[in-house]
C-alpha cells in the first residue's frame, strides 16, 4: 500500500445469489482513499455504489457476497494493513473496526435511529462499546459531539427522543454518532438525498468542516452531481458495477472523458443561462437490469460513440489520460494506439 493511503480497494467483485446463480453486481473495481480526502462514488440507481460502500464494512445482506478482491484498511501508518475481505462477517475484528475506525452515515435519517431510545443513549452506546468510558464521561462526550454538529442546546437534546428531532437534526445526530470514536474513515451513503435544499446546504457545510478542520477522510456516495462538485476531491463514476472513469473533481467536471460521464454532465439542468434554455441532452434508453447485462462495455447500447464489433464484444481496459485521471473506454485506447492520428 502506498503511504498516505487509508483504504485501498483492489479488484472487488460482489455477486448476488439468485436461486443458486451468481449474478455479478460489482465487477472488479479499484480505488484508493488518501488521508484527508473526500472520494465520491457517483452513479445512477443500481450501479452498485451503495453495495460497494456496504461491502467496506461487511454490511452486505445475506444474498450478496464478496466473491473476490481485497479491501486493505490501514488506519495507522505504522501498522500493517488489514484486509477486510479476509475477516469474518460478524467476527470480533470487523466489529472492532465498525463504528470505531470506520463508520457510516445512511440516507434515511428517519429510520437510522431507534424510536424508543434517547438520542444521547444511542450515540453513547458506540462510545461505551469502543472507548470504554464511564457513564458520566460518555455523556460529556455526547454533548460535545452534538454541539460540534450544530445541534442547538445539546444539554437538552441529549435526553430527547428521535421523534422530537426534524429530519435535518436527525441527520446531524447521525453524523455525531458516526464521529463518536474519531474514525479514520467516514462513509456517507446519500446523506443529504432525503433532505430539503437549505438543510442539505447545512449538512454539506458540516461535512466540509470535518474535512478541513479534522482532516477527516470520507467516501461520499451520491447520484447528485451538484453535491459531488461541492464536496469531493476525487470522483469515481460507476456504471453497472464498474468504475468507468475516475479522477480529480476538477478534471472530471472540466474535461470528462468517458461518454457516460459526458452524457451525465450534459443531462443535468444548470442555472447558467436561463434566458436561452436549450433542450437537455438525454441519454437514450435506460440502465439494463442486472440479468441483462450487455456484453462488452456495459454502456455500449446507450453510447453515441459506440464502435461496432469492439464495444459490444470486448471489455475496455483502463487507460490514463493524465497522471490521476483514468477512463475505461475504447475511444481512449484508440488514441493511445495511434498517436499520429
Amino acid at each position: 500500500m502506498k503511504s498516505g493511503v487509508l483504504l485501498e480497494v483492489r479488484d472487488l467483485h460482489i455477486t448476488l445469489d439468485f436461486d443458486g446463480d451468481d449474478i455479478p453486481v460489482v465487477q472488479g473495481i479499484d480505488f484508493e482513499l488518501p488521508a484527508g480526502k473526500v472520494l465520491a462514488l457517483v452513479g445512477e440507481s443500481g450501479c452498485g455504489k451503495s453495495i460497494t460502500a456496504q461491502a467496506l464494512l461487511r454490511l452486505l445482506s445475506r444474498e450478496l457476497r464478496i466473491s473476490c478482491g481485497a479491501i486493505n484498511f490501514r488506519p495507522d501508518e505504522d501498522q500493517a494493513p488489514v484486509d477486510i475481505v479476509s475477516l469474518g462477517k460478524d467476527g470480533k475484528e470487523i466489529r472492532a473496526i465498525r463504528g470505531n475506525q470506520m463508520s457510516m452515515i445512511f440516507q434515511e435519517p428517519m429510520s437510522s435511529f431507534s424510536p424508543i431510545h434517547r438520542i444521547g443513549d444511542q450515540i453513547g452506546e458506540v462510545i461505551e462499546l469502543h472507548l470504554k468510558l464511564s457513564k458520566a464521561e460518555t455523556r460529556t462526550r455526547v454533548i460535545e459531539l452534538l454541539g460540534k454538529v450544530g445541534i442547538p442546546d445539546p444539554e437538552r437534546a441529549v435526553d430527547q427522543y428521535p421523534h422530537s428531532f426534524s429530519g435535518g437534526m436527525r441527520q446531524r445526530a447521525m453524523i455525531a454518532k458516526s464521529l463518536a470514536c474519531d474514525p479514520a474513515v467516514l462513509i456517507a451513503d446519500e446523506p443529504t438525498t432525503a433532505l430539503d435544499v437549505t438543510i442539505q446546504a447545512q449538512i454539506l457545510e458540516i461535512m466540509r468542516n470535518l474535512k478541513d478542520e479534522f482532516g477527516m477522510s470520507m467516501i461520499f456516495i451520491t447520484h447528485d452531481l451538484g453535491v459531488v462538485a461541492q464536496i469531493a476531491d476525487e470522483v469515481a463514476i460507476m456504471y453497472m458495477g464498474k468504475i468507468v472513469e475516475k479522477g480529480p473533481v476538477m478534471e472530471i467536471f472540466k474535461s470528462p472523458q468517458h461518454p457516460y460521464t459526458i452524457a451525465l454532465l450534459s443531462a443535468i439542468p444548470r442555472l447558467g443561462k436561463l434566458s436561452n434554455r436549450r433542450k437537455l441532452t438525454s441519454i437514450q434508453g435506460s440502465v439494463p437490469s442486472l440479468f441483462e447485462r450487455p456484453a462488452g462495455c456495459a454502456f455500449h447500447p446507450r453510447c453515441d460513440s459506440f464502435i461496432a464489433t469492439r464495444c459490444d464484444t470486448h471489455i475496455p481496459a483502463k487507460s490514463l489520460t493524465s497522471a490521476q485521471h483514468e477512463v475505461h473506454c475504447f475511444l481512449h485506447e484508440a488514441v493511445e494506439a495511434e498517436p499520429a492520428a
Partner: protein
Amino acid sequence: MSRLLRVSDVKVHFPIGKQGFFGRPAGYVKAVDGVSFDIERGETLGLVGESGSGKTTLGRAILRVLEPTAGEITYEQDGNSVDIMALDRRGLRNIWRNMQMIFQDPYASLNPRMTVRDIISEPLLANRLAKGADLDAQVIDMAKLCGLNTDHLSRFPHAFSGGQRQRIAIARALILHPEFIVCDEAVSALDVSIQAQILNLLKDLQIELKLTYLFIAHDLAVVAYACDSVAVMYLGQIVEIAPTVKLYYSPQHPYTEALMSAIPEADPAQVMQPVFLTGERPSPSKPPSGCRFHNRCQYATDICRSEMPPLRVILEGHQAACHHSEKLSLKGALEHGARD
C-alpha cells in the same frame, strides 16, 4: 396569452386533535393559507418550496381532489369561466377531462394488475368516450406520442423501468386531451439521464398538444429549466412569484435568496456560499405572527413580527410578500459567479 386558471385566496386547513368525541378540533394545520395566482394558457408555472410547505396540497386542492376549506378557483373553458368550487360531482368529472395529474412515484401510481393498454385506456372507458377499434387506435397514438414501444402494451407495469413507467403515467393523463396538467414531482424519483428524457418529453408534448402545466417540484435546477414562471411557497403561503429568470437572478424575498444560495452547482470551481437560515421551520399549525418567515430571516425588523406582508407587485410582473423588498439587494443564483 389568455388566462387559463385563476386561484384566489385558497385555503386548506386540516383539523387536528379533536376534543371529545363530537368536540371541536383543538387546532388546524394550515397547509395552504390564502394562496392566489393566475396561470396563463400554454405556460408552465413552477411551484417550489421545501417539504411541508403545502405545494402538493395546493396542487390537489386546485383539482378539488382534496376539498379546499375556502377560496375561489376559476377555470376558463371554451370562453366560459367555470367556478370549480361550485361544481357538483358530475361537473367535476367533466372538468377533470380537462385537468389531469401526474404523480411522483411511477411505481405506486400504476395498478400492477392492469396491462399498460388497460391503464392508458381506462380514462376513455370510464368517460364512455371511445370503444373498440377507435379506443385501440387512440391508445396506440398516445403511447407512440409518449415514446412507448407499442409492441409492449399488453405487458404489466412491473416489466418497465422507472422512466418507462412515467411515460405510461403521462400517456394515461393525456389520453383525454386535457389542457391543464398538475405535475406533482413528476421527475423527482427518476435518475438524471431519465429525468432529462421525461423533461424533454413534457416540453415536446406541451408544444404539440398546447398544454399548460403546474409543475410542482423541490429541485430548483429542474424547475429553472422546466418553467416559465415560478412561485415559491413557505408555510402554506406564496412568498414570491415571478418569471423564472427574474426570480432566480434577482429574487425579492429573503427566503428565495436562501433557497437560491443553497443550490449545489455542478461546478467545482463555483464554491457555494449558502445563506444559512437560523432555527427550525415552524409548524404549520402554529405559524409565527406577522411575516411567517420573520424568525428565520436575517433582515427582519419590528414590522415583520407584527404585520403580515401581503403579496404585492415589486417590479413589473414580479410579486413578493416582504415589507423590505425595495430596500434589500438580495443575491440570486447568478451572483455565484460567471457560468458557462
